Every structure is written in C-alpha cells, then in structure tokens.
C-alpha cells in the first residue's frame, strides 16, 4: 500500500498525472469507514473483492462517504452529531480539504454530489430550530459553503442523487440536540418522510407513511438504475409491533412495504442498518447487525427471498451477481443471489462501520 502511495505521489510530483481519475487510485470499488485494531478510526478504499487498497486516518468515528462522480476524491463524514467531513484524495492519501459544519449545524454522516460534481449536498441538523437542512458546498472553490435549503423534515439522514440529477432525502423524523448527545427528543410526535428535491434543491414532493407507522424512522436509501428508491427504516416503538423495515418507492406513487413473516421479521429486531439494491432493481437487501442477518427481498412482490446469517453485518452494497456485505468483525462477503452462496470472502483486521459505499 505504502509503495503504491509513494509511487503515485512521485508521479504526481513529477506532474505526470494532469487529469486525475479514479483509475489512478487503484480503482477502489468501495469505500467504508472502519475502526482499526488500535482503536483509531479510518476511511478505507476496497477493491471489488474486499481487499483494502488504501486507508486514511479520521479524527473520530466515521459513518458513510460520498465519492465524487469523476475525480478520485471522496468525502468522509463524521458520525452524527459530528461536525467535520474530510475530502480525501484517494490517490495520494492526502486530505484535500476539510469541511466544518457551520455554527448551529452538524452533519448526519451522509452526502451526495451533483451530477456534474460541482456541488456537494449534506444533510444537517439545524438543532436550535429542530429542523433539517441540506448544506450546499462548492467543490471548485475548495468546498466552500455556498447555500443551505430546507430538507423538508426533521433529522435528514441520507441523501441520494436520482438518475435525472434531482435528489431524494430520508428525513428520519427524530429530533436530537448535541447538548443531549444522541437522545431522541420528539418520539411521540415524530413524522419521518421521503422528500424529493430538484437538482437546485427545491422541494418537489414528499412521501409519508401512514400515521400508525410514524415511529418508523426512515434512515437510509438505495437506488436502482431506473430510479426505484429503496428506503430502510428503524422502528422506535415496541419491538414486537415492528412493521416493515424496507420500503420501495417511485416519486408520486404508493410505496411498497416489504417484510418477512413472523419470527423471521422479528429476527431483524426492528432495526435495519443499511440498504442496497441491485442495478436492475429486482432485489433489495437490508441488514440488521443486532440480528446478525441480511434479508433480501423481491422488489416486485415485497416477499423475502433469501437471507444471509452474518454476525454484526451492517455495510451493504450491490456487487457483481448480488450484494457485498461487511461486518464489524472484519468480514467482507460477496454474496451471489443466483446461487445463494458466498462467491468470495475477505477477512480484515478492520471493524467495518455501518456503511459500504459503492463508487461509480
């Protein structure tokens, strides 16, 4: 790893790489935050088979990351209620820029670039007002803060860019304040939603689940090539009353909720940590680290079709033939939905954190 970085740094210094691309970063297929054996936090780049290509130190625990659409640059976000995000040049290992959330705001751990890569959008908490906002950052000027728009709800957690360049935001609905740590302040009245916004950040439409599901915090998002949105939820009520933890939605239509039967659903313990969907949008997967389980659903019927038992599984992404799963004990698994087996497994000393972010 070091030799690659040294080599690339040398190339850079010599001016041999005028137009940086992702290929020069060793073509990482995935990014993930992790905890190293010494307890320090890292952002890692992984190849398509789960091998670590590079690792960068983070000042505190990370959460997810956003990969720039063209430049070999990733923004690693602090876990909420963190206030930093680091722009990492994935070729040199250098920190290209640091973003600090403005006074009165903190990040939620996710972000998304505009289609042309000129702007970065970050879900944030305006915690005095108890409202969610989306911060807008200008990439060309070294990630300067240029704007802020309402997120359309409370606790905006994840954001994704849709194929047409617009965005979808998961407003989790839960109000928190840094003075109270991660305590949930508004459960009786929480109202999560999915908010669709234009490429410029103006709210276009919103989807709310029925009232009886208002305790189902919509947290994480995944997308098919044609714009089907999969959203994963975390139930805040009685675990034995937990409704579906996975929904599928197209703007303007009714959502389809997907859940397993009886104790198989209960095995998820009311908690989905990550969500992924295959490119064709036929299968969606959610993970439950508490249940040590990944459940894979048919997106047309909402029926459970497969499950994968893996202790402390959380990070999920689509991969060749199926899904890639990471766990807190350092496993990376390439799971083939056709054969119902793991195609490959990689082991690492890293404890993989909540999300596995696919590049490209």
């Amino acid at each position, binding site marked *: 790893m070091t030799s690659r970085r040294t080599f690339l740094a040398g190339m850079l210094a010599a001016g041999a790489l005028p137009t940086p691309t992702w290929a020069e970063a060793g073509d990482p297929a995935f990014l993930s935050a992790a905890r190293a054996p010494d307890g320090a936090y890292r952002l890692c780049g992984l190849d398509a088979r789960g091998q670590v290509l590079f690792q960068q130190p983070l000042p505190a625990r990370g959460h997810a990351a956003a990969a720039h659409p063209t430049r070999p640059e990733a923004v690693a976000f602090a*876990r909420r209620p963190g206030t930093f995000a680091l722009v990492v040049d994935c070729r040199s290992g250098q920190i290209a820029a640091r973003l600090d959330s403005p006074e009165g705001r903190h990040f939620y751990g996710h972000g998304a670039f505009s289609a042309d890569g000129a702007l970065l959008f970050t879900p944030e908490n305006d915690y005095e007002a108890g409202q969610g906002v989306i911060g807008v950052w200008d990439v060309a000027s070294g990630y300067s803060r240029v704007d802020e728009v309402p997120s359309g709800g409370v606790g905006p957690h994840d954001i994704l860019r849709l194929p047409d360049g617009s965005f979808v935001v998961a407003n989790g609905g839960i109000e928190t304040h840094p003075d109270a740590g991660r305590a949930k302040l508004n459960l009786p009245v929480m109202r999560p939603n999915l908010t669709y916004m234009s490429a410029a950040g103006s709210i276009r439409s919103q989807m709310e689940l029925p009232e009886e599901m208002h305790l189902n915090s919509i947290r994480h998002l995944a997308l098919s090539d044609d714009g089907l949105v999969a959203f994963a939820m975390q139930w805040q009520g009685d675990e034995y009353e937990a409704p579906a933890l996975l929904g599928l939605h197209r703007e303007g239509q009714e959502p389809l909720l997907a859940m397993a039967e*009886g*104790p*198989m*659903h*209960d095995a998820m313990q009311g908690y989905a940590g990550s969500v992924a969907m295959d490119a064709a949008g036929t299968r969606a997967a959610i993970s439950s*680290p508490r249940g040590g389980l990944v459940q894979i659903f048919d997106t047309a019927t909402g029926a459970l079709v497969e499950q*994968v038992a893996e202790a402390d599984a959380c990070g999920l992404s689509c991969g060749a033939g199926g899904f890639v799963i990471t766990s807190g004990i350092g496993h990376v698994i390439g799971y083939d939905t056709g054969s119902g087996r793991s195609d490959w497994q990689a082991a690492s000393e890293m404890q993989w954190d*909540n999300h596995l972010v696919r590049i490209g």
Partner: protein
Amino acid sequence: MRRPLRTALIPLAFVLMPPGAGQAGEFDATVTDVVENHILPRFDALAEASEALDAAALADCTPGPALKEAWGAAFDAWISASHLRFGPTEADNRAFSLAFWPDSRGATPKALSALIADSDPAVENAEDFTQVSIAAQGFYALEYMLYDDQFTGMGTPAYRCALIRAMTGDIERTTLAIASDWHETWAGYLLPPPSGPYRDEDEVLGELFGALSQGLQFTSDTRLGRPMGTFDRPRATRAEARRSGRSLRHVELSLAALRDLGERLSGDDAELLAQVDEGFQTAQDLAADLDDPIFAGVDDPSGRLRVEILQQAIDHIREQEAANIGARLGVGAGFNALDGD
C-alpha cells in the same frame, strides 16, 4: 431443497475483542466439552423425542393425553436446544419450521384455518407439506391443533388427523436432519482444530458465547418481555405457548440449558463457575416461586412486578456473569450491533 426461502450459512462469529484473546488451542477442552456434552446430546434427544411424537400421532391422532404428552416431551427437547441457533438449525429454515414464534400477526392460526378450510391435500404428502406456509408447521402450530377449541373442532376429524400427522412427520424429519448434520459435519467444524466456516478458535468461541448471550436475551426480552408489555399495557395473551400452560416452563427449561452452557464455558475457572451458578440459581429460584404458569399475573401491578424481578435477574446474568465468560474467552458484543445509526 426444503422450501424456496434459503438462509445462507456464512458463519459467523460473535465479535472478537482486540488483543489478548490468547493462543490458538487454549480453549480446546472447553470447545470439546460444549460440543460433546452440551450440543450433541440435546439434538440427539430432540430427534429421539420427535420420533416418539410421530409414533404417538400415528398410533392415535386424537388430541388426548398420550399425544399431548409426546408433544410436550418433544417440545421440551426443542426448548432445551433452541439457543443453539447456528449451523444445522439454520439450513433450509429448519428452526423456523419447528418453531414459528413469536407470531405477532397471527400467521399460524390464519395458515391453519386456510389449510383446513380448503382441505388442502398437501397434508397427504411429506414433500408437499414442506411447501405450505412455514407458520403452519412445527411445535407452536401443533399446539393450536391440540389445545385450542377453535381448531380441535374445525373441519372434519379425518382432515385434522392427517394435518396433525403431517406436522409430526415433518418435525421428525427436520429434527433428524439437524442431528445428522451436527454429527456428520458441524461438530467437526467446531472441534479443534477449527475448520469449515470457522477461521480460528476465536470464531468458534464467538459462536458458542453468542448462543449463551442471545439465548439469555431471547428469554428475557421475548419469553418474558412480550407478555409484560408496558406497565400501562401488559399483554398476557402474548405469552409463549399459553394454550398448553407452558409459558413459565419454557423460561425454566431455557435457564437450565443456558446454565449448563454457561458452566461449561466457564471451564476450569472455579471462581467464575461459582458466580455463574449463583446468578442462574437466583433466577431459577425466582422462576420456581413464581407460581404463574402463563404469566396471567402481569395484568395487575404486583403480579407484573414479580415477573419483572425475574426478568431483571436474567438480565443481570447477561450483564455480569455472561460478560465475565466473554472476557475469559476474549469475545464481546458487536461493533455495529452495539451502537447503530
């Protein structure tokens, strides 16, 4: 394949704590003891009792004392093994086909009503019966057919008889398959040196410790927590196997099984063993004194408090004694599971 839904068996370890876990082979004796004296005898007993259950149903399928007794004995054997949820129990959803509970949305009575209303011929063929709703299979579904007035008189006696025999036959085949897989492959994976899906001893220890920790959690959160509900809204009708009056019995059986596992995982550490015994004895004494077989008492504050004290004693085992066992073995709770977002 048993049924279309499959569970991939990519194992599986609990979580390895950073360093100090010890040298490979340090816990050979512990692992061997657990496999040979805790795991294998339980799945052998389950298969044997399930064979007797099927024989009883073939001899007389009416829900009389003989069939109920055989069902109770096999169910006891399942509860005493039900914390060992990895490997052979998870292939082809075997554990869920034996034990579809908790059933929060009433899938079992719905599925049974549908089978009986349609006189579904799947009961005539063992392979066909594996394809009916998983909620209509196993010990909990059989309880409806043996103890619930709504079902003991539903449809024709001949159909009910065929359905009961389909269930007992399926239970017998499933438990035999689990026992056979344990003997033929999975015991060998766990026994030193670790093999198959287990990369090293730490992963084996993580699996065994996970069974203890998750077994305690299930008994506390589900067997007791479900009927307890909240103080303002106790939910006695959510108690496990209440139709047959077995709710408290399941708590006692699981505590006995988990105590045996906890003792074996304490190995030759006498001080730890004494702590583990004391923790379990406290909980077992509270359960024995409860005198409330289906937790009906949760409906009034003093009855609920007594169940809550038992729950706290079980949580105490998990937080103290089990945690100390984890420390001995060098395993702990998950990074993501502990603190998600």
